[in-house]
């Protein structure tokens, strides 16, 4: 335990009493972000897993997107992307299997805090190919 000197310190802390109503400008969740995950095939033998995270938050520093693709119950691909306002994840897979894409995203704010995670899912069924 650190020693604290028993001295009298006059507190010069400037206590700001403002007329503005309280409004913490940075939020714990990002109401201005959007996360979407899709799995699409435009023909051929591949299905594309796509996830897009974007934020219009005025206090935004970065957005962080993680995409993960399962084939049946096995993780076959994952990637984390960090970007300024919009992060995009994309990976291609053999469309003859069933897949689940799990995307998670969060916002890093200018004040050093981050939002809680948002999640989005997409599925591909081999029978739809």
């Amino acid at each position, binding site marked *: 335990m650190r020693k*604290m000197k028993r001295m009298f310190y006059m507190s010069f*802390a400037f206590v*700001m009493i403002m007329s503005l109503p309280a409004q913490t400008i*940075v*939020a714990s969740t990002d109401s201005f972000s959007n996360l979407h995950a899709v799995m699409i095939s435009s023909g051929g033998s591949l299905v594309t897993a796509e996830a897009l995270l*974007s934020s219009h938050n005025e206090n935004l520093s970065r957005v962080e997107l993680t995409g993960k693709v399962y084939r049946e119950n096995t993780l076959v691909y994952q990637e984390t992307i960090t970007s300024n306002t919009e992060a995009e994840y994309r990976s291609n897979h053999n469309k003859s299997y069933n897949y689940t894409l799990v995307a998670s995203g*969060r916002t890093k704010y200018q004040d050093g805090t981050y939002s809680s995670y948002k*999640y989005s899912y997409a599925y591909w069924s081999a029978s739809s190919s």
Partner: protein
Amino acid sequence: MIKLAKIKNPLVCILLPFMLLTACTALKKEEAVTLTINYSSWQLFYTQMGYVFEENYPHIKIEVLEQSLNDDTYVETDIVFMNQISRYDTQKLHPLDALMKRDSVQFSDFSPVVTALLKDASQTDGNIYGLSPYYQTSVIYYNKTLFNKYNVDLPKNRMSWAEVLERAGQFPSVDEQNNRLYGFVSNYYEHVPISLILRAGQTEGLSFINPETLGITVNTERWRTIGEAVITTVEKGALLTMPDNTLENGVPHEPIITGRAAMQLTSHHTAYNFQLYEEVFNGDAVDWGMVTVPVNPLLPEYSDYYNAPLIFGISAVSKHKEEAWEFIKFITTDSRYFNSNGEEIIQNGLPAKTEFIPQIAGHELDAFYMQKPSLVSLNPYDNVHYEIINAFKEAGQAVLDEMIAEDADIEAIFERLEQEGQKAIDAAKLKIEMNDG
């Protein structure tokens, strides 16, 4: 044309005018109307509320005039969106009181958190000029199993920061399997100890910077007491101080959800992610509870973590006030909106009408709404450029890292913190001034 004189049934004579009036009213209601709204993105607007509203009101279309949230320019629209209460301009807004009374929308049906935030903004004349579909807050989640295992007193509502940190410091930094364990996880991703010191000071009514002069004051007894508590927790290894990039099964999760934190301060949304972790990711269940965020012991019933990020009003000069009101009423009070869009809403906030907050089996949700919103803001980012505050944090964290390693005493740390912090702020201010030309 129907000639009333030839209608022999008196009942028809009586009812016909009402039927015609009703038919005309119905026709009038169905008249196609296009409303305008200012919002940051039309895609975001439609995902959050536009599609579901137009499904239920097919005669009303909404045109989004995209406007950055950083842009303070007033754009004339029927529905006025405000993301901060301080952006209220009651001169340009139509009071909602009469519409609410006519349609039996009771202000008292909204969470006291929201009514307090909105009333505060309308204090000029007591009228209501805007409503919010939801609000945001944070709480402290805790792992009951870990508290019992290490024989630490369970957290309670309205703890001070000192009480939170004292509990955090009683947990070991690793468990029996040598896995990293955290006593407390904050919502900061960088410069965590110095950020936590400043945030705890903010809670207790302290400000470290004068927004007018940019002079700083941290070398005081109160700041040192807060600093002592945070630094002690860091030294014990009980605080998550670096970004936690561990991916559980490939997907990132909060440490509280994966059982690696005894306590974590994060948003309301995490409460709904525990179940998700079990059901979707096959994670181990955590026996969790939640309590309010830390409070100022002198004002224990107040919290400065509340926020109403979306506020909607009606332009005083709109020609479509009725339709604009239908929209606002729909997104703030209509169960059709909350039932069809629940998952999207809960990711963004807690419904302003408490009855729409999704319940979680086995958990009381009081901690979400039991506090009153603070009436003053001490958030330094409200009034000082974020790069200046962040320059202080960066320099301050470097001082902490160096002097904690040297086992310096708290007086020396805070003396140096004030000196180096002021230098960093002066340099950041100069840089911003030069960049601004």
